[in-house]
């Protein structure tokens, strides 16, 4: 007798028949009928019409029948709320049944009936069950609180269930504790208001640690996750928690292991990096991670995604375990790809030979995605380990000989990167590459090949023919290829001007006249103008020495990495994105790693003080995949702000000088004609010079940039900056100069609490990576919605700047006038009233010396900076200006400025309810008037 019979009903009046059976007097028949109903329900048939009949069967003392009816109720109560109410009484009664199993079952089912009307009836029975003498009932009730919270959060908070739940954390039974923790974490997940009442302290953490040893594996996961959200007071506490958590690393359940890894990875940040504890912990983390890789493939996948983060944060942990990441041919593809990624991260000089042999093996496999990634990996090895570059290039050449189309294309893309990394070393292989020109059909491979031809045009005899062959189908090419082709031909022209004029004209006209793509047109025009005005400058720009590409690609941006480390074992760690980037409706609360406090006090403060400050957006450093885009940019120098700036400054100077002599000789008749006759082109050129020429001048006083962070304090990063106000918005103008030997990347900025609540309004956007000896500037918009804390002096702002090298601190002074708002003008009457209202002892007088302006210019200058002159009087030959201004935080300041004609010293009297700000205002006046 099997259950499959419940599925086989062929008659038409099925529902009708079931109805009759449900109302039968015989208990057995009833039960069979309920079973049939449930069978239909689970295969998705709609049996909701039987609701009332099924609910009628509920009043029974047969546990099995009761359970079946409960099952049905849970599924359908939502669609039939009115009938569901009749079941309430049974629940209330069952909650007082002498059998704890029935009490627990009732409280469990109650919570699953997701009907608003019912919930309020359930509060009383639930409250009783939370204090039930039987732990089985208590632990079930704990989960029920979470269920209820999901249906009606307000009710749960009003009824004090959160406190009851918190009390359960101290329960004598570990299973109850574990379920309470689980319920709490689920509630916290969805509710911000519950945050305060459910906060963990070291006392509760201690209780959790005790329960950890005794509760079930699932409970251990909840408890460990909860502990990982707690920030320990000091390194002693962190150390002791780590010690109590490490035994979990030997658990058979992979989820427990990974959650324990999370706690330890997070807490290690607090510990002193050189301490024995850290060394010991690092040693202990490696074996369990390796063990996870012999579990089921799904577990391997999640483990590998997490290991990818862990090796980026602490490369020490798995440095000797390279071999476990070798790919087995029957691993699922998602495991293979992840293993490959980690292999590259762990590659070093010592193991490169083995890795390379493996990669070559992989490149002969059948799965195309995997083969491609393996070929790329070989290129990454070459870039990472210089000593092995030659061997890698050899391997790639072997692979090209196989003539397998996608292998060849992938190999060419990575060889281009190798050329970038080791210029003038492996050019002998270009001939081999050129043989495969015809087989390339993917845009990226074509673009890479074209780049190589352009870059080494002087060594390839038939470079012009090769490029010309690409030019034939120019219109049909992908933009990437078009841009690259344009650049390559211009390079060729600059290297071999004699016989390639026609080619360059052809490509310029194709790019500027026959294309709709603005990028292509712009680049075309810029080249055109460069070539026609100053070929020397063109050479300098187009053939400029390219910055070396960095060794590590695909690295996760450090702030993001730190955040992800806090989310090890969670979905975020699988996606490598912070949770709020992909889970719907989540609060903006973001986790950050705690810091080691010894000697780094300000950092801890900044990190703790500004939890709301936006961290830099998760921008992942462009990996090899997007390097080509990068390359294109650099060739041209157009889109990067710095180089654009450079070009702008070059062009106007060189243009007039170069026009008469150089251009025409070099370009000859053809291009000249084009320039003269082709109206469209010329117009556009005119437009261009306009853009370059006029820069609208703002009359707002922006202090000159000062050095905030000297290079010797910023490990090579020099930072100068100032503050400005444009369009009612405050900006922090920054110029970053890289004086170190290596490129810098991953810039982020954070403010400490300050007097005016200034904080960045958007993430820092700056050219990244910033190559050595280059600078880049950025305008960081600020708002005043940050946290406020009075600083001494008032205008001080403490700032932390972070990049791949480290975190640096400086403090700077915000000139008060950028905080003057545009709406600061007062009515005359109001002004008079306020002036009288503010007591005389609040008046502060000072002298501004050495100003050479008359009253009108002074008033105009101040007005430009949002100090409004309300009235002007002439008293005894002196000009009296009455002025008002208003700060971002609403503080009003009234001013009287006394100007004696012929005297260069002005007297300024300030009146405000808040006296503290007067010195800063005086300074601001001083600054504006001396500008």
């Amino acid at each position, binding site marked *: *007798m*099997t*259950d*499959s019979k*419940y*599925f086989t009903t062929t008659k038409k009046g099925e529902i009708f028949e079931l109805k009759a059976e449900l109302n039968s007097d015989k208990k057995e028949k009833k039960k069979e009928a309920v079973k049939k109903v449930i069978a239909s329900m*689970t*295969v998705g048939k709609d049996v909701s019409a039987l609701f009332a009949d099924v609910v009628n069967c509920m009043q029974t003392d047969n*546990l*099995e029948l009761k*359970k079946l009816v409960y*099952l049905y109720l849970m599924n359908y109560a939502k669609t039939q709320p009115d009938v569901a109410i009749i079941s309430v009484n049974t629940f209330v009664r069952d909650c007082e049944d002498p*059998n704890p*199993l029935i009490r*627990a079952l009732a409280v469990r089912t109650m919570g*699953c009936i997701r009907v608003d009307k019912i919930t309020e009836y359930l509060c009383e029975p639930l409250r009783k069950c939370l204090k039930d003498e039987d732990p*089985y009932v208590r632990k079930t009730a704990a*989960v029920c609180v979470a269920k209820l919270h*999901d249906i009606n959060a307000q009710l749960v908070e009003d009824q004090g269930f959160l406190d009851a739940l918190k009390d359960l954390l101290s329960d004598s*039974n*570990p*299973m109850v504790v574990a379920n309470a923790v*689980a*319920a709490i974490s689920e509630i916290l*997940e969805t509710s911000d208001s519950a945050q305060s009442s459910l906060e963990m302290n070291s006392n509760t953490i201690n209780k959790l640690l005790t329960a950890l040893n*005794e509760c*079930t594996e699932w409970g251990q996961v909840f408890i460990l996750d909860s502990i990982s959200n707690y920030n320990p007071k000091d390194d002693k506490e962190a150390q002791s928690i780590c010690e109590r958590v490490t*035994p979990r690393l*030997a*658990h*058979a359940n992979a*989820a427990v292991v*990974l*959650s324990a890894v999370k706690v330890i990875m997070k807490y290690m940040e607090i510990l002193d990096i050189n301490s024995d504890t850290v060394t010991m912990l690092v040693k202990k983390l490696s*074996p369990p991670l390796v*063990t996870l890789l*012999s579990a*089921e*493939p*799904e577990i391997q*996948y*999640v483990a590998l995604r997490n290991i990818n983060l862990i090796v980026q944060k602490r490369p020490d942990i798995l440095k*000797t*375990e390279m*071999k*476990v990441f*070798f790919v*087995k*041919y*029957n691993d699922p593809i*998602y495991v293979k790809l992840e293993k490959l990624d980690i292999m590259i991260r762990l590659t070093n000089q010592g193991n490169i030979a*083995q890795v390379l042999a493996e990669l070559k*093996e992989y490149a002969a496999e059948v799965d195309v995605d995997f083969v491609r990634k393996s070929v790329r990996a070989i290129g990454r090895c070459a870039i990472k380990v210089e000593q092995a570059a030659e061997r890698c290039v050899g391997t790639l050449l072997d692979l090209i000989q*196989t003539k*397998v189309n996608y292998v060849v294309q992938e190999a060419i893309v990575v060889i281009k990167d190798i050329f970038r990394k080791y210029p003038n070393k492996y050019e002998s292989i270009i001939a081999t590459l050129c043989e495969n020109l015809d087989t390339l059909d993917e845009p990226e491979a074509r673009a890479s090949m074209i780049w190589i031809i352009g870059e080494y045009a002087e060594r390839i005899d038939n470079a012009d023919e090769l490029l010309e062959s690409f030019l034939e189908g120019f219109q049909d090419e992908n933009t990437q290829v078009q841009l690259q082709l344009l650049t390559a031909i211009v390079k060729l022209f600059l290297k071999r001007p004699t016989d390639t004029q026609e080619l360059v004209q052809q490509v310029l006209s194709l790019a500027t006249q026959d294309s709709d793509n603005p990028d292509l047109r712009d680049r075309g025009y810029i080249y055109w103008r460069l070539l026609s005005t100053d070929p020397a400058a063109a050479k300098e720009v187009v053939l400029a020495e390219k910055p070396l590409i960095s060794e590590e690609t695909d690295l996760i941006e450090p702030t993001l990495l730190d955040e992800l480390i806090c*989310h090890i*074992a969670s979905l975020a760690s699988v*996606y490598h994105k912070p*949770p709020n980037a992909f889970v*719907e409706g989540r609060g903006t609360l973001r986790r950050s790693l705690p810091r080691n406090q010894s000697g780094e006090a300000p950092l801890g403060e900044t990190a703790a003080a500004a939890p709301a400050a936006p961290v830099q957006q998760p921008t992942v450093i462009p990996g090899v995949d997007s390097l080509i885009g990068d390359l294109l940019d650099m060739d041209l120098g157009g889109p990067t702000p710095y180089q654009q700036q450079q070009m702008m400054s070059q062009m106007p100077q060189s243009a007039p000088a170069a026009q008469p002599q150089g251009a025409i000789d070099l370009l000859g008749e053809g291009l000249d004609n084009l320039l003269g006759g082709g109206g469209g082109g010329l117009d556009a050129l005119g437009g261009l010079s306009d853009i370059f020429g006029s820069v609208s001048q703002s009359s707002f006083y922006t202090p000159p940039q000062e050095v905030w962070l000297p290079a010797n304090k910023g490990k090579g990063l020099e930072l100068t900056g100032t503050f400005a106000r444009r369009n009612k918005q405050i900006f922090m103008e920054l110029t970053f100069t890289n004086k170190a030997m290596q490129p810098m990347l991953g810039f982020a900025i954070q403010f400490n609490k300050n007097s005016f609540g200034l904080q960045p309004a958007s993430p820092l956007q700056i050219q990244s990576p910033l190559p050595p000896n280059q600078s880049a500037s950025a305008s960081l918009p600020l708002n005043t919605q940050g946290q406020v804390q009075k600083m001494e002096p008032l205008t001080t702002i403490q700032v932390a700047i972070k990049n791949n090298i480290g975190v640096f601190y400086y403090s700077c002074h915000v000139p008060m006038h950028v905080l003057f708002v545009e709406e600061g003008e007062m009515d005359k009457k109001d002004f008079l009233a306020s002036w009288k209202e503010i007591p005389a002892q609040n008046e502060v007088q000072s002298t501004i010396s050495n100003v050479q302006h008359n009253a009108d210019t002074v008033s105009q200058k101040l007005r430009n900076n949002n100090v409004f002159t309300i009235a002007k009087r002439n008293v005894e030959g002196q000009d009296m200006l009455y002025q008002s201004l208003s700060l971002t935080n609403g503080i009003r300041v009234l001013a009287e400025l006394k100007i004696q004609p012929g005297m260069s010293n002005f007297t300024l009297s300030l009146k405000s309810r808040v006296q503290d700000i007067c010195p800063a205002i005086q300074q601001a006046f001083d600054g504006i008037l001396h500008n």
Partner: protein
Amino acid sequence: MIHSLFIINSTGDVFLEKHWKSVVNKSICDYFFEAQSRQTNPEDVPPVIATPHHYLINIYRSSLYFVAVVTTEVPPLFVIEFLHRICDTFEDYFSDCNETILKEHFVIVYELLDEMLDNGFPLAVESNVLKELIKPPNFLRTITDTVTGKSTGVSATLPTGQLSNIPWRRTGVKYTNNEAYFDVIEEIDAIIDKSGTTVIAEIQGYIDCLIKLSGMPDLTLSFVNPRLLDDVSFHPCVRFKRWEAEKILSFVPPDGHFRMMSYHIGTNNMVAIPVYLRHNISFREGGGGRFEVTIGPKQTMGKPVENVVLEVPFPKSVLNVTLTCSQGKNSFDPVSKLMTWDVGKIDPSKLPNIKGNITLQTGVPIPESNPTITVMFTIQQMAVSGLKVNRLDMYGEKYKPFKGVKYITRAGKFQVRT
């Protein structure tokens, strides 16, 4: 936590769904089917799939997909482990876990799922607790049920193990014959390259137990050479403190079968490779090729190598193979291109050999690489790592149990590149 579960068969039918919270429409599985359609092999479907409102975490077992739906940020390993546990439970109850069997025991499946999770939180997962709550089907019970006309699959009392400090064991266990068996099983995962050099070799070890002891026995198991074990994971019953301090396994065992510990002996140790392959595989222009493989024992400490099976996944361009083997049976599946050679036992004096011709499809280029051969074997009475149990002691009960330890070495993922 876990919102819903869908079980999907190989033809893409959702034949069972279970919701622990509000009902999620079956159409959510379309995202899964979409991901599935992008892969050619059924096992290549990514385990975590994001959809606009939900996450689908799935495992693939016994040709079925178990797809869990979650809506909040949960540890994916938690869900994966749990799905595997559900499968284990089904196998435990019905001795297998396939579509027919699940449909056959449909009501029990439903009851089990309902008992294992509450609101998406694990509730009763331990096999002994479940079995007290919901009786597994058996022949005898079916008969009595039909005769007496009532079925009492559901227990009306609270399982005793549920809340004790040792939830894995129920009280009042009684046996007439008290026995405890320990299997030390070691699996060799290895990759051997063309020339016969070991690229990587590691040992995945398990100690599986069958304990039939009355009462509440407290056991200790010690090893002759515990220092071999530095990477271990234990069943919750093992007292970790004692292991750390004395390298002794001390535990109150669950009743019946369970895996007490698993251990991993990594690549940094030398692993003895018990078999070797001599192979000569070549493809020629013109649609053919030769295939010859000989297998022989290497470091087996004199123990026979048994249950040897070789699997050769030929490239897709192979049309057929005609092979003759000196012993055992061989077969070739023209669809999957998999050649299986069931060798049996290796006789060291007469090494098993297989050879013959390969026919390629006409007009396709010759394969660029040779297949990787998977080897399976078993060696009884040997633990390849050399691990040895020293003694087993029992406290807490008066009777004298019968004790037995068995050692088995077998191939895990043992692959030879050719």
